[in-house]
């Protein structure tokens, strides 16, 4: 019997001393011991078994062969440096380093001064997250990683970009090309042409007519450049003749006029071989004046005289004479001018090579020297191509009386009257036609993917083609000048590409790196 008595029906003895429950520190000690054990297990597995993947997820399939070689990517206790990535990926660079990491910066900025990363640039590993499993896509870069830099407007000597936070009207600037005010250089009426093609070819949809000129490249992402021979010549094979223009023996600032083919041929200049095939029936003469009966596309007599008139009136660059049209191209497209100049020089060289006149050999040497210089520039993607050698300085007119200046305009206008049916004449030269239909430089767009759901004119509706093309009574609009290629603004895109509908992710339209699968784009961008 307990001295403290009993309790309950079972007459159980009361405790004769205080009863202390066991300390719970034992559980804490067990927990700490288990944690220590787990820590040691992880350390041992990583150190002795090389099982680094137990720390985090397995590396992606692309890096699976490096799964247990931490040091391949990680420095001791540090994140993955760009140099570690470059150790393998630089080997993929071609001889001019297109795929080199430094070129990635050039690619993005299209600026050679940015051939090296700035401070605070994101690292490779910062965007391409690893250890998310074998099947996790490394290229799945999320918007915040882009917005981290591009979310704030920036402008300094090297970098200039607006603030871009998302793809909507408030947080993304409209396309640069839409904001441009210049036209395509062509006096053209889309609606009239669509109507005529539909009628002639008996087509049942406007879009089929579009494809007569806008021919898709293989893959359907974009289109081949427009070409007179392929797209215009079938209907516009021969133009009318010129108006009567004054004849001069040589064009100078005091004497606006044109030279006859005979006078031009007598100059024996490179590129004048065409004068030999010109017949007397091609021209009409009257005292002091001449006109060509029928002008062909890129008519050499018209273009030669137009160049001479321009040179007499404006100060021009040393290569300006090698172009058939004005040198109006965006700086990124300077390559187009050099390629045209190259083509002109090659034609001139081939003419001289076939000539028996040894006196012309010196001209050939000069031409070949210029050819070599242009080819060297074209083959060097590390040096930007300047447009200045082609420039026509419209503000630096040669000194001449106002009446003479008006005479120049009059002669140029009368000489190019048939050309003006389709072409603009600016600064005494045919305006350059923006024939390349790739207008986006930084963004990518795939027409084919979009044509599954939308028709051409659902988006390209700045020029009201449907309204005129579908009605024979409707009056065609004024010449639309192929205005900015009828490009829709961003507001058209956001009708589908908006939150909750089609994707609005940055990488949907923008690349950070050059694509190896589309190397042809790289030189274009690098310029």
């Amino acid at each position, binding site marked *: 019997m307990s001295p403290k008595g009993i*309790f*309950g*029906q*079972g*007459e*159980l*003895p009361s*405790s004769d001393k205080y*009863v*202390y*429950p*066991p300390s*719970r520190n034992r*559980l*804490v000690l*067990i*927990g*700490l011991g*288990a*944690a220590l054990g*787990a*820590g040691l297990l*992880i350390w041992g*597995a990583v150190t002795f078994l090389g*099982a680094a*993947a*137990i*720390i*985090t*997820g*397995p590396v992606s399939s692309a890096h699976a062969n490096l799964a247990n070689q931490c040091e391949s990517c*990680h420095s001791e*206790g*540090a*994140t*993955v440096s760009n140099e570690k990535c470059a150790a393998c990926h630089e080997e993929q660079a071609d001889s001019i380093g297109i795929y080199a990491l430094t070129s990635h910066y050039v690619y993005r900025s299209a600026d050679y001064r940015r051939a090296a990363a700035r401070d605070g640039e994101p690292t490779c590993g910062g965007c391409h*997250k690893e*250890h*998310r*499993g074998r099947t*996790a896509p490394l290229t799945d870069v*999320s*918007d*915040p990683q882009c917005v981290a830099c591009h979310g704030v407007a920036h402008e300094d000597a090297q970098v200039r970009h607006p603030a871009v936070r998302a793809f909507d009207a408030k947080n993304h600037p409209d396309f640069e090309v839409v904001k441009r005010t210049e036209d395509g250089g062509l006096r053209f009426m889309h609606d009239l042409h669509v109507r005529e093609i539909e009628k002639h070819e008996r087509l049942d949809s406007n879009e089929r007519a579009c494809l007569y000129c806008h021919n898709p490249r293989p893959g359907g992402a974009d289109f081949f450049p427009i070409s007179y021979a392929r797209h215009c010549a079938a209907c516009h094979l021969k133009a009318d003749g010129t108006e009567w223009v004054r004849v001069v023996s040589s064009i100078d600032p005091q004497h606006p006029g044109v030279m006859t083919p005979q006078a031009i041929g007598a100059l024996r200049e490179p590129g004048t071989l065409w004068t030999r095939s010109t017949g007397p029936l091609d021209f009409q003469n009257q005292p002091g004046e001449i006109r060509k009966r029928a002008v062909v596309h890129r008519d050499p007599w018209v273009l030669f005289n137009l160049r001479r008139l321009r040179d007499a009136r404006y100060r021009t660059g040393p290569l300006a004479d090698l172009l058939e049209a004005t040198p109006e191209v965006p700086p990124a497209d300077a390559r187009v001018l050099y390629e045209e100049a190259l083509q002109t020089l090659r034609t001139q060289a081939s003419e001289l090579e076939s000539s028996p006149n040894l006196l012309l050999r010196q001209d050939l040497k000069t031409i070949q020297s210029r050819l070599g210089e242009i080819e060297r520039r074209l083959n060097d993607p590390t040096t930007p191509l300047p447009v200045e050698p082609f420039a026509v300085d419209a503000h630096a007119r040669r000194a001449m009386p106002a009446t003479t200046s008006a005479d120049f305009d009059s002669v140029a206008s009368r000489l190019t009257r048939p050309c003006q049916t389709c072409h603009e004449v600016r600064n005494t030269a045919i305006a350059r036609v923006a024939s390349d239909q790739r207008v986006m430089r930084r963004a990518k767009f795939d027409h084919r993917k979009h044509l599954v759901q939308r028709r051409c004119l659902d988006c390209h509706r700045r020029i009201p083609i449907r309204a005129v093309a579908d009605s024979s009574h409707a009056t065609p609009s004024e010449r639309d000048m192929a205005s900015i290629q009828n490009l829709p603004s961003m507001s058209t895109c956001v009708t589908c590409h908006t*939150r*909750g509908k089609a994707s*609005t*992710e*940055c990488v949907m339209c923008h690349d950070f790196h050059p694509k190896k699968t589309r190397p042809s784009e790289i030189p274009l961008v690098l310029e």
Partner: protein
Amino acid sequence: MLLALVVGCLLCLGTYALSGLWPRSRDAWLLGFGIAAAMVMLGVGSYGIRRRLPGAPLGRAATWLKVHLFGGVLFGVLVLMHSQFRFPAGGMNRVLWVLSLWVTATGLIGLWIQRWIPRAIASGLSDEVLYDRIPELVRSLGQRAETFVASCSDPIQAFYQTNLAAMFAAPQASFVYYADVTGGRHARKKQFEYLSHALGGEERGKLDRLERMYKAKLELDAHLSLQRALRWWLVAHVPFSIVLVVLVVLHVIFVLSY
């Protein structure tokens, strides 16, 4: 408390659903859920420190317990959100995931045990017994039963040896008490009733006393079984929680370092 818990969880899940509107920001959202889970875990874990400082002016223990329970459930939800409701890749991540859910689940089970068992004991058992005294009391009861039965007639001694001796020898925990806190007492008393009919008046009184001892032993076994659950769920919760905290710290270090 329950309402706040439901609202908290719904808010978290709503945030998760909203984050789906920015699929390209998924990584940032998931990282945010992970950071929130780690912060909540630290807050919840500080309850263990509060328990060891009973005299410190740190607010009411009951409030701390509520925060512990609320945060614990929220932690589990946030971990699931962090892992996109999927079993993650990587050994350590998987261990962390399983541990997080284990600790949350054992915590919830502990909450249920702490609410249900005291009520069951109070409603079904007549005596209150300290868990740590049960072996001693069973031993004492057994000795008294042996002594008492020695003074009884042969039928009672035979009955005791056949049916009760083994049971009085030691505490006997059983899952039966979770289903029926009396341990099927009424059914077991039948055997006493059968014997009682065959006994005379004095012996019947002794049998009644033996029956009371038997009932007390059943209650001690019920106490042992039920109070053991109150103690042992902590073994399934506390050490694992400590391992979880250490591994989460390692996880954060690895993420920041690599």
